């Protein structure tokens, strides 16, 4: 039976509420990003408003319009992982492994507990370009598939991160990659939250990973989506600023450990925050041009799910990527939902660039670090508002202030939208 949108939403929540829901908490975080290789470094960069953007001159050889990119070193895993585990890991898989090690340590979870609790993994990832391209080059050259080696298939698949980490950490629960374009990481957290909330999983490793290389981003550069402000890399990513001219591609990986509140209390874990709401929607519109109503519905659904009012949200970590159209639409959407209360808004992409498949997860980690340390990270390079961002309460400088609830947006191609709300306990 077809139900109007509002009735459908009510019926979903009614169905969900028939069973007693579990509370879902965050007990661990790990990060490997362009603004730091661990939680401490990233916290410091966020507070200082440090940019992770630089130039990758090799991109010009591929005909890129812009060499701007997030700068990151590939971690050396020799000595940490055996050869069999390493050969299956592509670039973003290595980032994800390092971030996950830190998250598990942060959560105080050991291998024995992961197995006993039958933990799972839901990780956001939506490409693995380099292994695919290298395999095709080799096949064309050698005309022999056995010359590709044993790791190529495991590096090439979109599910590379979840498949590799589930073997490395001997996980026994849900084992799945979430591909939702630039909202992948956020949806992974949201879906993990749902599984725990309904008692289907006790503990899940959730997150998002993103490769940084010219091979994966040429087609995006070809859409003229990237900033060409190459003379000032640190100023190129300027979400909501009047003079923004495009996004800066970036990446890394972010992992969070989420578990049931009861389970976390039982094992004596430090609870870092509670996942309070998840909202999602699809624009049902243009493949690359965002709209306003899709994000509005996603934010409202997250608020409804959390049982919170707009005045309860202290801080919004915006999706805003620094594209002329996208930031304007999000500003209008935020204003439509939160115009009466005007919570603080910033886009950490001003420092990190656009972390794409990873962004929805990393930006929860960034916001968590702010909430833990009583500050709002700045939306650097926000010098002049445009007609839409002028309606928002954007933080251009670091603000020292405690806060208790944040909302994080992530949107992607195809009009996929995800909104998460996290609160301090």
């Amino acid at each position, binding site marked *: 039976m077809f139900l109007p949108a509002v009735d459908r939403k009510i019926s979903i929540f009614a169905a969900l509420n028939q069973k007693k829901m579990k509370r879902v908490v965050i007990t661990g975080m790990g990060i490997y990003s362009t603004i730091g290789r661990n939680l401490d470094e990233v916290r410091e960069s966020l507070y200082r408003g440090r940019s992770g953007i630089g130039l990758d001159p090799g991109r010009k050889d591929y005909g890129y319009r812009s060499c701007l990119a997030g700068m990151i070193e590939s971690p050396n895993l020799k000595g940490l992982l055996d050869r069999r585990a390493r050969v299956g890991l592509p670039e973003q898989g290595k980032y994800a492994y390092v971030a996950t090690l830190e998250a598990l340590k942060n959560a105080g979870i050991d291998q024995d507990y992961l197995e006993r609790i039958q933990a799972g993994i839901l990780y956001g990832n939506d490409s693995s370009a380099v292994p695919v391209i290298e395999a095709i080059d080799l096949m064309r050259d050698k005309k022999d598939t*056995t*010359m590709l080696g*044993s790791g190529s298939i495991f590096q090439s698949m979109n599910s590379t991160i979840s498949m590799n980490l589930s073997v490395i950490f001997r996980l026994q629960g849900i084992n799945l990659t979430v591909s939702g374009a630039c909202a992948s990481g956020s949806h992974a957290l949201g879906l993990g939250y749902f599984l725990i909330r309904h008692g289907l999983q006790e503990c899940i490793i959730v997150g998002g990973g993103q490769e940084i290389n010219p091979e994966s981003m040429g087609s995006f550069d070809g859409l003229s989506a990237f900033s060409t402000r190459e003379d000032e890399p640190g100023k190129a990513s300027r979400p909501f600023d009047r003079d923004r001219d495009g996004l800066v591609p970036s990446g890394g990986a972010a992992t969070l450990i989420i578990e049931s509140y009861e389970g976390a209390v039982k094992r004596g874990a430090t609870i870092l925050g509670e996942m309070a709401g998840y909202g999602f929607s699809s624009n049902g519109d243009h493949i690359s041009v965002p709209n306003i109503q899709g994000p509005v519905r996603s934010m409202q659904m997250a608020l409804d799910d959390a049982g919170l009012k707009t005045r309860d949200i202290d801080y919004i970590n915006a999706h805003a990527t620094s594209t002329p159209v996208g930031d304007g639409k999000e500003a209008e959407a935020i204003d439509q939902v939160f115009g009466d209360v005007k919570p603080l808004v910033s886009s950490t992409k001003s420092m990190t660039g656009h972390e794409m498949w990873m962004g929805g997860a990393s930006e929860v980690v960034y916001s968590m670090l702010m909430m833990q340390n009583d500050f709002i990270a700045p939306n650097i390079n926000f010098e002049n508002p445009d007609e839409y961002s002028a309606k928002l309460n954007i933080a251009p400088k670091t603000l020292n202030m405690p806060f208790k609830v944040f909302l994080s947006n992530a949107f992607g191609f195809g009009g996929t939208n995800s909104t998460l709300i996290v609160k301090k306990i």
Partner: protein
Amino acid sequence: MDKTEVVDIINGFLTEEFEIEENLIHPDATWSDLGIDSLDFVDIVVIIEKEFGFKLKGEDMVNVRTLGQFHDLIFQRQLSKQ
């Protein structure tokens, strides 16, 4: 290439690329002793092609049970290639 050179190359990539402890590498060691599984064979085929310029096939390996037999096989194959 004499037998010693062939053995050195093979033992070299087993210790360096496959990170097998040197004390495990001796002619009587089985693949299982060395911790080599079916996926590792795929990589061994790639390395042999790179080092010796010929391609190993599955049927070549049917009677190869130990590292010493593998040394012999590769030595004979590279001789016949010459």
